[in-house]
Each structure stands twice: as structure tokens, then as C-alpha cells.
């Protein structure tokens, strides 16, 4: 959970609001990797993610003078990214092609990866890369809203309260969507494990 408790971006935001383009560039550099992960796991496509992220920062640049600081910049920019991506996904419909296959080599050093592949678990019994591919397919079977919640909670590590602010729904709704999405993913992966060819 690396989101700021207080708005540590306030000095940069104030400079950007007064027309300092370099300050906005710093915000772009700071948030583009994190927002890339968010948008990418919602769209499942690198090209779409690139275009979407450019549009997100362009919109933020145009709107930053209207940013009054009622929420943190972190929440504000994530809200823009999520809303724009959800709108994009609605327009795109179910027409998508997966490109979620660029796993970084540093995954080999990840503690959870080592744990998953070394201990006795359903994951170890299946081929991990195939499992990841199936997981991505399962993610794309979720509705856009459920996938957004799963991405923010499991992949981005956001707390329920932050997700509820970004989506503009109650924390209860966030928990409910998360529970439902987990069940769907679980069913899909269990089915794969029982019928690996499928």
C-alpha cells in the first residue's frame, strides 16, 4: 500500500496549476508506471493501454487548474484513469485481444512466486505460465467494474476505502464486487485444473 496518507504531491500540483509544465512532467513520470498497471490489467492490451494513458494525462493536464484538492492527487488521477478506461471498454465492447504475456524476469525473485512454486499447492500442480494465461482469460470474463475492483485491490494493493473513493461507490459495494469476482475466478481456475486441456 504505497498511496500517500497526506497529499505529498501538493507542491507539484500547485506548481503545475500555476503553469509550470516541468512540475506536471514530474507527476507524469511518477504516476505513469502505476497507472499503466491499472489500465493494462483492465484493457489487457499494450496498445490500448498506451493510448489510454496518454489520453488520461492529457485530460489531467487540461483539468488540473480545476483541481481543488478535495481529494489527494493520487485519488484524483486514478479516478480519471478508471473512468476513462471504463468508458473505453464500454465502447470497445467484447472485442479485445490479449497481450498479457510480458512477464518481467524479476518475477523469479518474488517471494510469493517462490512460495507458490515451491510448496504443495494447486498452483504447483499446474504449469504456472499456463495458469497465468488462464487467469488472464478469467479476468477478461469478469465485467469491467468487477475487473476494476480486482485490479485495484489484488494487483495494485489499494485498500477498500481508496477504491470506494475512486469508483464513487460505498465500501460495501467494493467488498461485494470483490467477493463475487473472487468466486468467479476461483471457479474458472478450478475448472481449468480439473480439465487442463479445456
Amino acid at each position, binding site marked *: 500500500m504505497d498511496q500517500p496518507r497526506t497529499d505529498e504531491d501538493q507542491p507539484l500540483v500547485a506548481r503545475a496549476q500555476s503553469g509550470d509544465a516541468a512540475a506536471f512532467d514530474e507527476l507524469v513520470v511518477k504516476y505513469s508506471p502505476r497507472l499503466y498497471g491499472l489500465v493494462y490489467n483492465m484493457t489487457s492490451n499494450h496498445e490500448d493501454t498506451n493510448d489510454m494513458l496518454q489520453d488520461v494525462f492529457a485530460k489531467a493536464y487540461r483539468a488540473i*487548474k480545476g483541481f481543488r484538492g478535495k481529494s489527494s492527487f493520487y485519488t484524483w488521477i486514478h479516478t480519471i484513469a478508471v473512468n476513462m478506461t471504463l468508458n473505453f471498454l464500454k465502447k470497445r465492447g467484447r472485442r479485445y485481444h490479449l497481450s498479457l504475456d510480458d512477464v518481467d524476469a524479476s518475477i523469479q525473485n518474488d517471494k510469493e512466486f517462490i512460495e507458490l512454486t515451491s510448496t504443495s499447492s494447486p498452483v504447483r500442480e499446474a504449469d504456472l505460465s499456463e495458469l497465468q494465461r488462464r487467469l488472464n482469460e478469467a479476468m477478461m470474463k469478469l465485467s469491467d467494474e468487477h475487473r476494476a475492483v480486482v485490479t485495484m485491490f489484488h494487483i495494485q494493493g489499494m485498500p477498500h476505502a481508496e477504491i470506494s473513493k475512486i469508483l464513487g461507490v460505498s465500501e460495501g459495494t467494493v467488498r461485494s464486487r470483490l467477493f463475487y469476482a473472487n468466486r468467479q475466478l476461483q471457479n474458472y481456475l478450478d475448472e481449468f485444473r480439473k480439465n487442463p486441456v479445456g
Partner: protein
Amino acid sequence: MDNFDDNEIGKLLRLKKYEQPPPGYFENFLHEFHRRQRDDLLRQPVWSVLWHRLSDSLFRLNIPSLTSYPAAVAAVLVCAAVVSLKVYQAPPSSDIAMADSASLPVHQSVIDQLSTERVADNFTLSAPLSSRSLGPDLSRQVSESAYTHRASTPPRYVLDRLPVSYEPSFNF
């Protein structure tokens, strides 16, 4: 075989953070952002660009903060209005005077007062001289001057005295 539980699904999902864009992507992202910004700017009409620049400059001047002092701004405006009215309603230069005595009510009252004193002096010949020895002379001069100009010519503007440079330097 056990089924997947929430914890293991969570662990699997967290591994997705290693799905990254191609190397060097984020280094080029900012350049691509600047390029798109320039392209957008070129597509905008000129009036829109000018409007944005004007609003930017006003924003930098922090004009809205000035409006938080409406009383001070109003007071300054009222003072400026009063001063400007006073300046434009000031009398003409003292070098110019109107010869018509009717337009000099102060002088007329002085004349009346001095005439009364002169009449009183005439009836008390034994009395000592008034301290206002110049009064009757002044009264006469002003009065005669007024009557003379009123009778002979229409009211006109005269100069109290000519500037030194207007006096002839030689008299033959």
C-alpha cells in the same frame, strides 16, 4: 486436490504486477506525451490558443485574490472618482477675471459695508480717522470700474495685469 482459495488467487493476481511494458517504454512515454500535446495545440484554432494563454496569464496574476478585497477596491475607486470630479470642477485660472460686478457678490457686500462706514464718517467729522483709510478709495475704484465697463461695453474678460514679457521694452 485442494481448490483455489481467495488467498492463492490473490497471490496469483499479485504476480500480474510483473507484466510490464517493453523496456524503455516509460523513458519514451514523456516524449510521446509532449509530442501529442504539441499536435493537439496545432489542431486548435488560433482564438482558442490565445484565449488559453490569456486565461493562463490572468491566473498567474492571481486576479481572483484581488477580488477578495472588494471594500478596498471600491474605496479606491470612489476616492479616485471624487478627486477627478474636484479637479474638473475647479475655477478657471486666477489670471482671468470677469469684469461684470454682478458676478462678484463678495465684492458687492464689501462695497455696501464700506459705504455705510463712509456715511457714518461724514456725520461724525470730529471723530478720529477710521483705521480703514483705504476703504472708500477701494470702494470707489471697484464701483466706478464696474459702472464704467457695464455702461460702455458688454461684459468681457480682462487680464489683471499683463505679463512682463508683453510690456514694450522701449517708449518713444
